[in-house]
């Protein structure tokens, strides 16, 4: 069964550094998402992407965050200048019309 893949599985970075989290969604999916889960807390929506543009973004998704789908297969989340509070599990998800979202295994981001 096709799956969403995320790399790396764990990223450690210093505060103020830029990070790029990568995702390869399922190939025939149309909608792409990033979610964040701080340890022990709920899964929070960051951003959705469709037709090569952002569909919706949450309050969390401020100017430090950006997303790209550079080559029709990868879907990336960039955090320009990481803060300690960005430490979390980041999940990529993809979906088609009115179908459940399929999640990747997540990237654990640790900001030191």
């Amino acid at each position, binding site marked *: 069964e096709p799956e969403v893949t995320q790399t790396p599985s764990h990223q450690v970075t210093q505060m103020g550094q830029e990070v790029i989290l990568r995702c390869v969604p399922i190939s025939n999916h149309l909608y792409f998402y990033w979610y964040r889960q701080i340890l022990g*807390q*709920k899964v929070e929506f960051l951003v959705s992407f469709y037709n090569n543009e952002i569909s919706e973004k949450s309050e969390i998704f401020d100017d430090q965050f950006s997303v790209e789908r550079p080559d029709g297969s990868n879907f990336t989340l960039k955090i320009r200048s990481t803060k300690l509070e960005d430490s979390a599990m980041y999940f990529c998800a993809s979906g088609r019309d009115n179908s459940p979202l399929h999640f990747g295994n997540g990237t*654990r981001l640790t900001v030191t």
Partner: protein
Amino acid sequence: AQTVTQSQPEMSVQEAETVTLSCTYDTSESNYYLFWYKQPPSRQMILVIRQEAYKQQNATENRFSVNFQKAAKSFSLKISDSQLGDTAMYFCAFMIENTGTASKLTFGTGTRLQVTL
């Protein structure tokens, strides 16, 4: 805006027993979907079951079934014959029907289920 509430932070059940996890939601939308996702210690997000709001029949998936009460905006998950592998965090989630745009999932705060011997 949609909200999803899970009022049970933790639950425990003995192996082979049945347990029910509660979820309520609030929305003014008519067409939507409800889901239960399982998150084991590995922190993967695994779809357990899905319910379309327009269907009156409750969804079932092997040992997992839901009790969907649309008027009450309630969507509980029943796990029968609980197994040790069911130990996980369970998230209830809501999604508006797609209308040509990316419709997001809104999650509850989760219920941590422990299955004991």
